[in-house]
């Protein structure tokens, strides 16, 4: 995909002596630490681990004890260089292997390693070439072991890795939730032959069976029958053929269905059965199609027999026969459906082609304990799932698929499920799947494209002192626009398309061009301003009666949430009228009854005993956190409820980060004895959530946060803001009480939910007793 920029460039890439654009592929090669290579029959997959140096925004508190002037900002922002670990995977045709090795040799500055882990059937063929070019010793690893290791890795670290293929559905790809426990599963690798492997644990797997009728049979027999040499061309032929001209169907024997056995007339009774009974010529297309059906059905049948024998229900398919080909995914899916009567679903993997390379790499990196970390797909540096329209001719396919990339960032923290999810296996963070909802997809893609200019402007403004920021911002614009365009045509490219993935992709792209925190200065300014009003707000609330106070606090929380630079409507207002204040925001709010209004139930609950511990997923900096959240949790603390404020680990839009929140809390504590005491007595804790997203995935939270939640006996979860409570988690079922609060700052979304802009969602949920026990 990286090379499909223009027609001439595309044709150039067909030339085997291409010049590689170093900006786009083999990135960070100069810092590469370790290599692994998986050479298959036609594609090579190279893996390397490198460190990426990029800028991060850091905040540091000034020493305010010395002097306190009104004009001084609260804290200082500095940009620091940080080094993070990244895994790069590049897939290209074997034809380019020499060019690529030369390129690597030229760009490899210094690497500690002396070996390259290698796997795949072609590893021995290119061993000498690799050793000669790279001066690295080729260390061969068992193919199957690598495959399984790679499979475990992607299943654990990439949400929406697995998908079900449905040819005729609105969205061909239906992505599966990552099951917290990925084991046991069955992997059916369809290479030249078929291997059926049962995987029970990280290091426990067994080849339980196989078949010699596989991809090699399709290719070899297909080449004999049709005189067509290339695998892709054979698939292309097959997609145009009519197997009923070659196969003997049940109706050819019975005249109709074989009713008593429930065999329909269209079922194949004998593959190629018609070519034995007539002398006529058969078309290449028809024979290829018949062959495809024969092989797919046979593999599907064996898969089902093995799944039944070993009592396995999760069945993943991989190997070059599958590798993103809609034709084979469809026939395999059909076969599995037929033989299991729908009890088992055929699952495919987004990064199936990389499994061997990932596994070989992990084998070589065992001393670094890569499995100890959580990893995240970097949307900016990954190609995503290719468009695999069967109408595309093989030459086009080959061209667009010349270089495919996957990048995985190592996260500093290990991520786990929120322990308070009612059912972690069925939890889906996102409220709307834009892959399936075409109307919503149209809208949001348009919305993000519209907002792009503003984001670029903000990015440049955040780095006024750096003249080359303009150029970088422009590159960011191109990259993100290209992503949006890709997603318009291939909404399935990175798993289910959601508002969250669109936001995350934007963050990844901003980071890619060293705009680690475009909102840092705005956040700083807002925080400064809001702090000045804190005591005033707290005092005004204290004067109210209990009932009035609770309502004012809830309203304040919602009003604070109106201040959100992420929402286009609000950023428009804020840009044109910076005086838009807290009180005005309150007036903008919808009058009760709200769009979703469970306030009465909430107030009834507050009349009861206090909660033990409230977990609050906070949203924006400034007015939201300081004038909305703090007065609210202050009341909870006074009631005797412990509070855990969970904030982002890294920056995203104007969301308050954990390091910013530390400083803010200190400052508030200095003014407010209630907060001060709570901090000192550890009744108020600030914990990072492990994320750098404006949305919230409760299945990928910082492990420390999960521990804190468990230890404190958390019995109330408050989720605030559009990103965390509407775009995600709106339907999340928790095993304790929860409040989901947001102001809908988007008229399209508000209308969809049956309201107007600035409609309020105040969702209070109590799990039923039965569910609690569950």
């Amino acid at each position, binding site marked *: 995909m990286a090379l499909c920029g223009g027609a001439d460039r595309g044709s150039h890439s067909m030339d085997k002596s291409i010049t590689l654009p170093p900006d786009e592929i083999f990135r960070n090669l100069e810092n590469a630490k370790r290599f692994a290579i998986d050479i298959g029959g036609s594609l090579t997959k190279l893996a390397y681990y490198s460190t990426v140096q990029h800028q991060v925004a850091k905040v540091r508190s000034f020493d305010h004890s010395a002097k306190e002037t009104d004009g001084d900002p609260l804290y200082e922002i500095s940009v620091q260089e940080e080094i993070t670990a990244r895994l790069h995977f590049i897939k290209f045709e074997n034809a380019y292997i020499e060019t690529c090795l030369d390129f690597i040799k030229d760009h490899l500055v210094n690497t500690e390693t002396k070996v390259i882990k290698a796997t795949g059937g072609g590893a021995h063929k290119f061993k000498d070439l690799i050793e000669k070019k790279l001066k690295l010793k080729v260390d061969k690893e068992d193919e199957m072991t690598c495959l399984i290791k790679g499979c475990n890795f992607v299943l654990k670290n990439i949400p929406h890795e697995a998908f079900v293929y449905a040819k005729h559905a609105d969205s061909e790809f239906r992505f599966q939730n990552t099951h917290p426990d990925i084991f046991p599963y069955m992997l059916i690798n369809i290479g030249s032959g078929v291997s059926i492997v049962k995987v029970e644990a990280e290091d426990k797997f067994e*080849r339980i069976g196989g078949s*010699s*009728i596989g991809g090699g049979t399709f*290719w*070899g027999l297909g080449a004999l029958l049709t005189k067509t040499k290339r695998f892709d061309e054979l698939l292309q032929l097959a997609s145009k053929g009519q197997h009923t001209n070659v196969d003997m169907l049940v109706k050819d024997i*019975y005249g109709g269905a074989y009713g008593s056995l429930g065999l329909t007339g269209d079922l194949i*009774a004998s593959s190629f059965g018609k070519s034995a009974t007539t002398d006529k010529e058969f078309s290449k297309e028809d024979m290829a199609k018949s062959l495809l059906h*024969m092989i797919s059905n046979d593999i599907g*049948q064996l898969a089902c027999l093995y799944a039944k024998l070993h009592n396995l229900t999760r069945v993943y398919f991989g190997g070059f026969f599958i590798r993103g080909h809609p034709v084979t995914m469809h026939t395999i899916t059909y076969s599995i459906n037929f033989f299991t009567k729908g009890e088992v679903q055929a699952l495919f993997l987004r990064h199936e082609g990389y499994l061997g390379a990932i596994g070989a790499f992990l084998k070589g990196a065992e001393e670094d304990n890569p499995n100890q970390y959580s990893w995240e797909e970097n949307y900016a540096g990954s190609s995503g799932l290719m468009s695999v329209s069967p109408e595309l001719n093989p030459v086009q396919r080959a061209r667009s698929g010349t270089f495919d990339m996957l990048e995985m960032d190592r996260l500093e923290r290990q991520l786990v499920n929120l322990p308070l999810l009612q059912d972690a296996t069925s939890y889906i963070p996102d409220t709307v799947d834009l892959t399936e909802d075409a109307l919503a997809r149209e809208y949001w893609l348009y919305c993000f494209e519209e907002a792009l200019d503003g984001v670029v402007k903000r990015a440049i403004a955040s780095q006024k002192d750096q003249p080359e920021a303009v150029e970088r911002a422009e590159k960011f614009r191109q990259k993100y626009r290209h992503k949006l365009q890709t997603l318009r045509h291939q909404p399935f490219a990175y798993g289910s398309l959601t508002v969250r993935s669109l936001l995350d992709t934007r963050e990844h792209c901003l980071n890619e061009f060293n705009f680690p925190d475009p909102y840092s200065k705005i956040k700083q300014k807002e925080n400064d301003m809001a702090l000045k009003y804190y005591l005033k707000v707290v005092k005004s609330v204290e004067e109210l009666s209990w009932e009035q106070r609770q309502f004012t606090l809830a309203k304040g929380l919602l009003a604070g949430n109106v201040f959100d630079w992420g929402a286009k409507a609000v950023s428009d207002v804020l840009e044109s009228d910076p005086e838009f204040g807290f009180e005005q925001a309150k007036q903008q709010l919808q009058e009760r009854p709200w769009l979703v209004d469970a306030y009465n139930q909430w107030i009834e609950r507050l009349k009861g005993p206090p909660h033990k511990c409230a977990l609050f997923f906070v949203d924006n900096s400034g007015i939201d956190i300081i004038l909305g959240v703090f007065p609210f949790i202050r009341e909870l603390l006074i009631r005797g409820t412990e509070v855990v404020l969970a904030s982002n680990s890294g920056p995203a839009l104007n969301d308050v980060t954990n390091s910013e929140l530390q400083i803010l809390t200190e400052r508030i504590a200095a003014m407010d004895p209630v907060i001060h005491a709570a901090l000192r007595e550890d009744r108020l804790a600030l914990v990072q959530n492990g994320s750098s997203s404006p949305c919230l995935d409760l299945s990928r939270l910082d492990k420390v946060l999960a521990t804190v939640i468990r230890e404190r006996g958390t019995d109330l979860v408050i989720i605030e803001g559009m990103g965390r409570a509407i775009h995600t988690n709106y339907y999340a079922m928790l095993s304790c009480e929860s409040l989901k609060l947001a102001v809908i700052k988007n008229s399209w979304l508000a209308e969809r939910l049956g309201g107007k802009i600035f409609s309020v969602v105040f969702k209070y949920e109590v799990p039923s007793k039965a569910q609690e026990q569950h």
Partner: protein
Amino acid sequence: MSEWMNRTEKLIGSLRVQLTGEAHSLSVYRFLVNDIMELNGFHCDGEGCAEEKEEEPPALMLPRSKTETPCSLIATPGADSEAAGGSALREQRVSKSTPVMLRLDSLKKNRPPFPWFGMDIGGTLVKLVYFEPKDITAEEEQEEVESLKSIRRYLTSHTAYGKTGIRDVHLELSDLILWGRKGNLHFIRFPTHELPAFLLMGRDKHFSSLHTTLCATGGGAFKYEDDFRTMANLQLLKLDELDCLIKGVMYIYSVVSSGPPECYYFEHPTDPERCEQKAYNLEDPYPLLLVNIGSGVSILAVYSKDNYKRVTGTSLGGGTFLGLCCLLTGCSTFEEALAMATEGESTCVDKLVRDIYGGDYERFGLPGWAVASSFGNMICKEKRDSVSKEDLARATLVTITNNIGSITRMCALNENIERVVFVGNFLRVNTLSMKLLSYALDYWSKGQLKALFLRHEGYFGAVGALLELPNPS
């Protein structure tokens, strides 16, 4: 044992009493006899049946050898109308205190009129069994209409019909007693695409004037029903092919007692030097996995004579072998394809484990000789150019056969059945496949599974259809 055998012989008269060399235990006979009795309406599970049993003459009650079977057939009330043991008709057969002679008369009266045919119209071949009565009296001979005589003479005096019809003389069962008549059972086959010619012949020979029922099974019984009526004025009795298959297997096994054993296996299948065909004693046959390899393949788990299920099937069967061979080699018949396969070598067509790993893939216990990818070497142009037609035919045969073996083995494991009987015309004159199946089942199951074969491999459906003849409903 010999004593009661003599007694039986006396009782029945000129019947073949040749037991196979194997020592049969009493239980074997009981099984076989019970089976045949049941097959012919002696299914004793109702109250009325128990009563009936008490009133049977002792000698007829417990016949103990295969040779007694015909006797029970003669003496069985209702046998004529209930050859299939159809449960709905079971009560009717009870006729208390009926003397044996009377029953014989009634049998004669209700016996289906000649000719006796059973037909199995498959996707590729039509299988026809014909019972030729040898005990025709002079009186009968006179009465016999010309068309019947002509059919009998035509079928029995030829071994080939037209260009493609063949009588498998070596399978003929002579001096068989069926519904009180003695005669020879003939086994005839012709390609399904010749069915119109067959129907025209039936018309020309005025088959319809005989007012006989034509029992037919296989898909063609359904597909060509109208053609039978319009072209030859014949009404078909359509029968389920799997019911017929199982009945046919059990019947033929029970009546074959002399000559080559009906059921056999290959001893030492993994050792080509010592591999040899041996008779198998199918005592207490259930549970049994029955694999019928015709154009396609059906796999049945049989738990008792009327309790079975179709476990699965595959479209990679005999039709696939022949179809692919025709396309790959330009041959046109199964015999040609098989002859080429016998000459060829599949290892240059297939990619073996050792081609990939240089030897065994020890980590997973895969021997180097195992096929890793069928036709896997054919992805390479040079290799495509260098293979012979014979090699391609051989590879096709090995691919289809191994695949059937593999699916069968998985079914056997899932159904927890250790004995597998392979039938169907794919195995006709196909020792290569039979040995391969024996080998594959033995090797991959580590000796747990046994592959069994039956001499009348492709004809059981037709036999099962014939047995339904007295059951015109």
